[in-house]
């Protein structure tokens, strides 16, 4: 064991803990924000008692869940029941290795960043199916199978949409894709270029993303009114909290990847808002823009959640297979054609 390696490992450990803390913090305040915003939109108040404006509500809820009884139902497979939440949580957290938080703020700017994200997130399906099966509950099993069918159906259009910015940037690397949108002005972001093709790709990506993170209008796998709660009916305490954590962390990931691929990542919308900085200042400003843009999308997600109804299972599956996939293939070939004809300056 040489010293250099240990030092690198120590730095990475620190980074890993910072990322974990970041996820916990963001998820806690996403939940708080969701409850307050939905309360506002539904003309009620939402949690406002614990701490200023109810800011301590979610940490208190987390502590409460920690003290709850860990019920394992009769007939459940104890081992699988216990490791399923871990299988679901680990990939949702590992995605953050390649998350471009800011200029120079990527834990590891992997050469195949986007491919890594889609590969790692595809593991969560296994955890969900295992959770549903291990619970020995009909609702759980039905919810798990619906979840798996939904997740796999929307993974295909999602990857098709991801490939459009990859064509425009010529890179799978997160940093590379963001660098391709450089230039200071927001008109350099992919969403405003290429005759609306990336904009269409963005819509497909967001729709598929909503389905991937089990968000309204595609929260079929949870569907309180018909399936009780889906694959996690039997879960209580911290195991349930891990599923909850994963869901919100994944929703944040969807928004952050959308910002990276289509909205210029960490770049400011106008050159005078922080393009000519260096060092720590550049890092801080780029981090601010990345988080600010992502926060806008997180808000839009909550807005959707407060206003839209849920689709039916058959509508969901038909939309995924019969509309999203042909549309994804079409925009991909359209993007290829536009680049071949030299109509976009890249």
């Amino acid at each position, binding site marked *: 064991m040489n010293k250099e390696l240990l030092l690198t490992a120590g730095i990475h450990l620190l980074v890993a803990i910072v990322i974990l803390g970041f996820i916990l913090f963001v998820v806690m305040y996403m939940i708080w924000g969701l409850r307050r915003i939905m309360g506002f939109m539904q003309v009620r108040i939402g949690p406002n008692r614990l701490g200023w404006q109810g800011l301590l509500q979610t940490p208190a809820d987390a502590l409460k869940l*920690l*003290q709850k009884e860990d019920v394992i*139902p009769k007939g459940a497979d104890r081992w699988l029941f216990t490791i399923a939440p871990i299988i679901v*949580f680990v990939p949702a957290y590992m995605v953050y290795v390649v998350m471009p938080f800011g200029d120079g703020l990527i834990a590891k700017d992997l050469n195949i960043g986007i491919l890594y994200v889609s590969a790692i997130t595809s593991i969560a399906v296994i955890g969900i199916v295992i959770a549903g099966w291990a619970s020995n509950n009909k609702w759980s099993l039905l919810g798990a199978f619906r979840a798996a069918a939904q997740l796999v159906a929307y993974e295909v259009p999602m990857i098709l949409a991801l*490939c459009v910015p990859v064509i425009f940037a010529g890179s799978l690397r997160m940093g590379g894709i963001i660098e391709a949108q450089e230039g200071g002005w927001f008109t350099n972001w992919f969403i405003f270029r290429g005759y609306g093709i990336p904009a269409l790709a963005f819509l497909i990506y967001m729709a598929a993303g909503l389905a991937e993170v089990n968000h309204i209008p595609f929260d079929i796998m949870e569907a309180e009114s018909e399936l009780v709660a889906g694959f996690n009916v039997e879960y209580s305490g*911290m195991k349930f909290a891990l599923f909850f954590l994963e869901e919100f962390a994944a929703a944040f990931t969807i928004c952050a990847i959308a910002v990276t691929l289509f909205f210029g990542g960490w770049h400011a919308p106008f050159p005078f808002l922080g393009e000519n900085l260096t060092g720590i200042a550049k890092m801080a400003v780029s981090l601010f823009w990345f988080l600010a843009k992502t926060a806008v999308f997180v808000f839009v997600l909550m807005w959707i959640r407060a206003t839209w109804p849920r689709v039916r299972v058959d509508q*969901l599956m038909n939309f995924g297979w019969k509309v999203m996939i042909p549309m994804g293939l079409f925009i991909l070939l359209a993007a*290829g054609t536009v*680049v071949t004809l030299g109509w976009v300056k890249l």
Partner: protein
Amino acid sequence: MLVQYLPFLILFIVAVAFSGGAILLSRLLGPKRPNPVKLAPYESGMVPIGGTRRPFHIRYYLVAMLFILFDIEIIFLYPWAVIYLTARAARLFLLLEMIVFLGVLMIGYIYIWRKGALDWE
């Protein structure tokens, strides 16, 4: 070379330690007062009827099968998309290659559509 994957290993260890630790902690802190009714599978308040693990509709297998085929199709899109910009002279050739590839798959797609495999009734 392999040192570049160190962050992944460390994040994996932290993730497993955190999630495993949280579950273990809640087992230690939480009360343990099991009773037969609490441990019974939840069926909206009814006494559970019959076994849980019964055969499901074939469409689930079909969806999973078709997903694998489409998944294999789209993994070819990553290398295609990433070299598209740099391969200046060969772009038309690349585009035609992909149109032929996807065209053949479209035949299969139309076939499964016409056969009703995509219908979720």
